[in-house]
């Protein structure tokens, strides 16, 4: 059997007395959307930071393309094709949208003209075509999320780690960006997304991992996970699953 593009094995990450991630494992194959969900403070973003090289885990391994890449710095992982976006969007505020995307495009294109062409193409693809020459700090939240996505896409990734690209968007904005995310997987990119917007995550994802208190408590198809008692309890509190079963009986 061929190993999935990304395999995360038994990662633990501790900040002082706080065990943010506790023995979490997951995997993500190419051309599929994998969702990582969980309540606030579950350790999702920390796990992303470990995978993308911004944090070093205390225990565990990250395997990418069949190689151990644990602790490799982010820029080197990006060169290998693993790129993350940030939950709190980090635009290069003083630059235009085009210049922002250009930074990503330069990773695979040294020549400015080729990189500019790439930036324009990606900008149009994510729906920023009209705004390419606007300063990035004038964009709305939805625009910044698109920009975050565009910059990452311009690096021509094989694995894209999306940290809450839908959070903070209104329903119509979500409807607009969902097809963009789906098209990435059909293009062959392995997408791993942290998501709070349940409905969108469940409809997009091929496979879902649920993280609670630093541990993976469930994994499976969206339908399986939604029916999992442990998941319901993690979200709604201890005893919630039993109560829900109870109301169903009556």
């Amino acid at each position: 059997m061929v190993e999935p593009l990304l395999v995360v094995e038994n990662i633990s990450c501790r900040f002082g007395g706080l065990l943010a991630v506790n023995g979490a494992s997951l995997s993500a194959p190419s051309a599929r959307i994998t969702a990582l969900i969980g309540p606030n403070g579950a350790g999702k973003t920390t796990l992303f930071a470990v995978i993308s090289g911004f944090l070093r885990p205390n225990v565990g391994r990250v395997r990418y393309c069949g190689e151990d890449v644990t602790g490799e710095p982010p820029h080197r992982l990006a060169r290998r094709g693993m790129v993350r976006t940030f939950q709190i969007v980090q635009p290069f505020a003083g630059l235009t949208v085009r210049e922002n995307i250009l930074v990503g495009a330069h990773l695979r294109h040294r020549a400015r003209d080729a990189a500019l062409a790439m930036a324009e193409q990606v900008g149009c693809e994510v729906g920023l075509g009209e705004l390419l020459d606007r300063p990035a700090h004038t964009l709305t939240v939805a625009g910044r999320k698109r920009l975050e996505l565009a910059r990452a896409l311009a690096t021509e990734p094989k694995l894209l780690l999306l940290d809450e690209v839908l959070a903070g968007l209104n329903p119509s904005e979500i409807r607009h960006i969902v097809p963009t995310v789906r098209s990435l997987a059909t293009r062959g990119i392995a997408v791993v997304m942290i998501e709070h917007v349940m409905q969108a995550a469940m409809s997009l994802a091929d496979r879902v991992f649920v993280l609670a208190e630093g541990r993976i408590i469930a994994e499976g198809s969206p339908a399986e996970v939604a029916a999992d008692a442990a998941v319901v309890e993690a979200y709604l509190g201890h005893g919630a699953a039993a109560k829900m079963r109870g109301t169903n009986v009556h």
Partner: protein
Amino acid sequence: MKSFVAIAAVVAALAAVPALTHSNVVLNFLVVTLMIALAGQGWNILGGYGGQYSFGHAAFFGTGAYVTAILQVRYGVNAWVGFAASIAAGAVVGAIIGGLAFRAGLRSSYFALVTLAFAEVLRILASVTPITGAGVGILIKLDLRAQSFQFQSRAIFYLVILALVAVALVIARLLERSRFGAWLIAVRENEDAAMALGVDAFAVKLGAMVLSAAITAAAGCFYAQYFLFIDAAIGYGPWISIEALLTPIIGGVGTVFGALLGALVVKALGEGAKLITGDVPGLDLMIYGAVLVLVIRFAPRGLVGAVTDIYDYFRAAAQKPAAEAANG
């Protein structure tokens, strides 16, 4: 292309000055101004484009000045060879300071303080070490021949420093259009986001530091050739660190012409004040302070930024009535 034309036009205009005046006062003023502009442009590569504010560019200016002086006086090396060695030595010192500071992950004010500390350490070392002439300094022998990088006429000195400034302007312009420049600016704007996009922030900052240091070292070497004297307070003194960062900040950080414009304005104001009040010590520093406060308050992007804003404002104002007329 457009911006290279602008550089050519500015340099050509400045090159015409010696044809218009033979006044040694004017030429001396312009030589010193351009020398500061060159040091400032060096600072601008790292500080303006890279966002790493150094308070210790004296480390490179002084190294440039001392290396050529020591090579000529103590070892009889040709002045032009000394000039090349100065630039190389500045680059090496930049690589050492940058390597240590960036490897330690120092950012913003911590980086500024460490560069200041390096420059001060070098100043103290230079003021006690025999090879640098300790407290006495080094006098370069007067030898007014082109092969000794010394010229009878100030006009030639002026054209030489103008050529060096022109090279520095072109370097900044090439930087703006290169991948390295795009990455450097990305690091300035947001280092984490840049790293996530595959930018090796350490390598990019180090490269900028080396280039920056080499340019400022060239200015230091020119100082030694022009004044034929160097000591610790001049070479490694805080004055040049301050002038190197003030000129681009006042002119416009991260712009091609910022350092040149800033140097012209600051030096003209300083000289103007001296003409009016006589040689009151420290007055030029007070002027720098006042100009800096005004610029930061009213034109945070410097004079180049302010000029661009005013130009955009009038262009918009000119287009508005035209558009209204077309609609009406």
